[in-house]
C-alpha cells in the first residue's frame, strides 16, 4: 500500500513538474521583486530551480520509504550549498533566502490537496510527510550555509580591518603618526603599540602623533589602552601628541576620571602636526613664489 503511494509522489511530481515550476517561480518572483530581482538572473533562477526540482524527484524515487538524511556530497546538497552561498553574498535576508524552498513546499501542498490523491487520507498524509521532511532538511541546510557564509565574510572583514587599520606613518624625520580608526579592543591596542614601538626604534622617532578622530567611542577601557600605548612610547623616549578628541569625547573622559595630563593634546591633526614639528625644531612656512 505505502509503496504504491510513494511511487505516486515521484510520478505525480514528474507529471506536475512544469506546472509546479511555474507556480513556484511566480511565487518567488512576487516576493523577491521588491528587493532582489535586480541581482538575480531570472533565467538562471529557472534553470537552477528546475534542476533542484528534478533532484527532489529523484530523491523520492531513490528513497521511497525511509526519511531522507542529507549526505554532504550528494548532488542536491551541493546544489543547495552553492545556491545559498550565492544568496548570502548577494545580500539576501535569511528569511528571504529560506523562503525559496518554503515557497516550493507551499506550492506542492496546495497542488497535492487539489489532486484526487487527497481523497485517500493515508496516502495524502504520507505524501505530505515526505515532502515536509525533504523541504525541512533543505531549509535547515540553506540556513546553515547562509550563516556559514556570513560568518566567513565577517571573519575575513575583521581580519582585513585589523590589517588595514593600524598603520604607522612616518610624517617627517623623527615624527610618526598613528591614525587610529575603528573600535579599539585589547588585541588592536596591543598591535598598535607593537607597531608604534617598532617604528619608533626604526626611525629613531622622538615624537608620535596619536590621532583618535576615527575612534567612535572613547571610554575607560579605550582610554586605558591608549594610555598604555603612550606610556610605552614615552619609555622609548618619544613624546606623544594626541589629536582629534571631540568635545563629547573630552566630556566623557573627564567625567570618567581619565587623566590625560601627561600628554599634549590638540583639537585637530593640523594643530598636532604643528606641535610635533615644533618639538623636533621644525616649522611649516609659506613659500613666497609658489607656483
Amino acid at each position, binding site marked *: 500500500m505505502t509503496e504504491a503511494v510513494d511511487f505516486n509522489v515521484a510520478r505525480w511530481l514528474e507529471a506536475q513538474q512544469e506546472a509546479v515550476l511555474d507556480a513556484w517561480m511566480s511565487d518567488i518572483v512576487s516576493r523577491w521583486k521588491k528587493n532582489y530581482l535586480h541581482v538575480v538572473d531570472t533565467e538562471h533562477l529557472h534553470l537552477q530551480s528546475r534542476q533542484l526540482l528534478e533532484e527532489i524527484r529523484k530523491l523520492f524515487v531513490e528513497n521511497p520509504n525511509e526519511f531522507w538524511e542529507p549526505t554532504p556530497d550528494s548532488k542536491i546538497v551541493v546544489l543547495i550549498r552553492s545556491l545559498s552561498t550565492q544568496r548570502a553574498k548577494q545580500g539576501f535576508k535569511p528569511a528571504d533566502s529560506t523562503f525559496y524552498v518554503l515557497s516550493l513546499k507551499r506550492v506542492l501542498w496546495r497542488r497535492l490537496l487539489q489532486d484526487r490523491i487527497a481523497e485517500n487520507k493515508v496516502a495524502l498524509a504520507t505524501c505530505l510527510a515526505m515532502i515536509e521532511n525533504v523541504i525541512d532538511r533543505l531549509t535547515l541546510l540553506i540556513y546553515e550555509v547562509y550563516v556559514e557564509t556570513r560568518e566567513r565574510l565577517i571573519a575575513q572583514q575583521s581580519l582585513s580591518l585589523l590589517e588595514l587599520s593600524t598603520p604607522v606613518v612616518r610624517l617627517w624625520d623623527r615624527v610618526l603618526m598613528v591614525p587610529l580608526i575603528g573600535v579599539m579592543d585589547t588585541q588592536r591596542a596591543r598591535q598598535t603599540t607593537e607597531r608604534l614601538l617598532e617604528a619608533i626604534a626604526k626611525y629613531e622617532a622622538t615624537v608620535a602623533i596619536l590621532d583618535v578622530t576615527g575612534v567612535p567611542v572613547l571610554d575607560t577601557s579605550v582610554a586605558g589602552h591608549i594610555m598604555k600605548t603612550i606610556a610605552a612610547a614615552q619609555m622609548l623616549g618619544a613624546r606623544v601628541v594626541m589629536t582629534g*578628541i571631540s*568635545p563629547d569625547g573630552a*566630556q566623557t573622559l573627564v567625567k570618567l576620571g581619565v587623566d*590625560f595630563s601627561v600628554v599634549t593634546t590638540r583639537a585637530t591633526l*593640523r594643530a598636532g602636526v604643528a606641535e*610635533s614639528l615644533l618639538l623636533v625644531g621644525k616649522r611649516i612656512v609659506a613659500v613666497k613664489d609658489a607656483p
Partner: protein
Amino acid sequence: MRIPILRLGDILLTSIQVDLTDAEVMQFQTDVLHAIADIEARGLVIEITALEVVDSFMARTINDTANMAQMIGAEVVVCGMRPAVALTLIEMGRGLIGVETTFNLNEGLARLNKKIAQRGDSSLTDDEDAV
C-alpha cells in the same frame, strides 16, 4: 540663561556673572567645548569675578571644564576668583587644582598669550583651507 562666549582672536572669553543652576552649569560646559571645537580656539578664559558663592559642584565643574578644554587643545586660565571664594574652596578641600588661576582678566590674558606663543600651532595663521 546661557552664558555668552566671546571670541577674542584665538581665545574664547567667558564670564560667569550670575549664580547658575546645576543644569545651567552643564549647559555652559557643553557650549564652551563646542565653541572651542568650532573655531579651534587655542585659549579659554573663565572669568568668575562676579561669583560670590562657589559650591563644590560648581568648583568641580569649572575644574572639569578646564580639563576637557585642555583635552581638545585649548590652554585654560580661570581668573578673578574672590579671596573669600578661594578661602572657602581651600577649606572645602576642593581647590581648583590643575588649572591655572590669575587674579584678574588682564593677567589671565597675558598668561594665556604667553602659553599660546610657546605652542607649535601658534605659527599657523588663519586656516587657509577653511571653507
